[in-house]
């Protein structure tokens, strides 16, 4: 890579950026389809069936429908912020992919502050929600956005602290080096099981998924912060939620589940049957997306399994359970590492 000359390096980087962004954006229709299909089967119905084979084209039909809807701007909104808010939610969610390594060769940048960068960029997503709620001049939207920002701030702390145990094992903030360290030792889910559980719970809260979807809470707040949005602007919020889910799943895979590393026993068996070229170029991506896909399925599974928490329960869980446990995890990891 280093001795290719500047023009070729820039070109290669551009190709990588396009590839990663395409994967991130194309995953949205796939996730929508999986979500609708799995939801359907969990509730003993079929889910989408008619558009395309087993309903696979349904998300595209949905997108077309959203595009053709009338774009309504309510009276007395703060125009600039009302139009900017969907972008402010969408861009930070997409920006996290700049440091997530999908495989040894498919990554945009390997910076040595990767983990902090992901935490800081994803904390910017709050502005989209808050501004959407405030600028639409609607009390339900404002309440929804206040709730969501309080929730995101509270769970961001638990999320950040649950990662520290991993950093203590890897001794690096670079996501690539964290994966390499797991190749040398073992997947961090084993020494960091508590951290893994805490991260998963906090990730659900950060992405506003059920059982933590209080910002949207249809029954009390209509639809929360995006109640006044229609057409493509609503679709932007929708997409940013899915992209944020994907990014959290990717970060979780990299930090705890060994990133692109193959599964311990099955992995070498499968890779032994394949030609070396495939093993080197394709299999890392296959393992990575298998893990991410498994976690995305888990997202949907949880959605139809647990009821929504009450607001005080949500805050109590964040501050009185997750935060002390995360601090305990840091303490425990330090103790174990010192005694080993």
């Amino acid at each position: 890579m280093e001795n290719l000359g500047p023009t070729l390096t820039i070109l290669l980087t551009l190709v990588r950026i396009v590839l990663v962004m395409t994967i991130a954006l194309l995953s949205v229709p796939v996730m929508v389809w999986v979500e609708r299909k799995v939801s359907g089967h969990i509730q003993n119905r079929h889910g989408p069936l008619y558009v395309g084979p087993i309903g696979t084209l349904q998300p595209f039909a949905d997108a077309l429908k959203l595009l053709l809807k009338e774009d309504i701007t309510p009276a007395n909104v703060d125009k600039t912020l009302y139009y900017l808010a969907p972008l402010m939610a969408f861009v930070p969610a997409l920006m996290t992919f700049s440091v997530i390594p999908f495989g040894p060769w498919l990554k945009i940048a390997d910076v040595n502050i990767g983990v902090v960068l992901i935490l800081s960029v994803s904390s910017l997503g709050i502005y989209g929600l808050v501004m959407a709620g405030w600028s639409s001049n609607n009390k339900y939207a404002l309440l929804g956005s206040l709730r969501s920002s309080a929730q995101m701030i509270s769970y961001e702390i638990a999320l950040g602290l649950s990662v520290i145990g991993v950093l203590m094992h890897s001794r690096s903030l670079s996501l690539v080096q964290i994966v390499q360290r797991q190749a040398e030792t073992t997947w961090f889910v084993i020494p960091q099981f508590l951290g893994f559980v805490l991260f998963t719970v906090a990730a659900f809260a950060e992405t506003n998924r059920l059982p933590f979807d209080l910002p949207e809470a249809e029954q009390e707040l209509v639809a929360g912060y995006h109640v006044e949005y229609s057409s493509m602007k609503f679709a932007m919020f929708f997409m940013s939620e899915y992209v944020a889910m994907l990014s959290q799943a990717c970060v979780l895979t990299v930090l705890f589940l060994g990133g692109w590393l193959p599964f311990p026993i099955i992995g070498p068996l499968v890779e032994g049957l394949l030609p070396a070229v495939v093993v080197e170029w394709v299999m890392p991506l296959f393992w990575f997306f298998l893990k991410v896909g498994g976690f995305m399925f888990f997202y949907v599974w949880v959605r139809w399994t647990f009821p929504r928490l009450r607001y005080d329960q949500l805050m109590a869980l964040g501050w009185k359970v997750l935060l002390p446990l995360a601090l305990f995890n840091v303490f425990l990891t330090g103790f174990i590492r010192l005694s080993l």
Partner: protein
Amino acid sequence: MGLQSFLFYYFAIVIIATAALTVSRRNPIHSVMFLVPCFIHTAGLFLLLGAEFLAAIQVLVYTGAIMVLYLFVVFLLDLPSFRIKKITHQQTPLAVLAGLVLVVQIIVLTVVAVFPRPAAEVKAPYFLGNTEAVGASLYTTFLFPFELASLVLLVAIFGAVVLARRERGEELP
């Protein structure tokens, strides 16, 4: 003009412009929202100086947490605009005085002071593993101020708890 100096002037111009917009907006929410790009571009300046850990922390702490709290405060205060006007007008003489002092200081500094090198020309990052550098200096050279700062924050937390605490059975004020 190299890429470094181009980026420096871009960040500098955006910082000054958004800072000016922050103080000139009537609507406090707009002020806060202009301060957000200002802080993000300040992080860009840190990046140019090779302090990437500081840049990420700048975005995480200032834009990700403190500005959101500012937004909360502005939401909850919700002053009617005529009262904001009145408050701003009362502050005018003091603000002019403070502003003048700052301008004089900046002029004196730019004329008198000798900068080791212009910020735009700082080349390669001069401490590479600067996460380690920050950690090491926090826990060795600056251990006492660091611990003191955490104590101050702890006192602030106690203060907030005492203010918000109600005895059992006490009514909401």
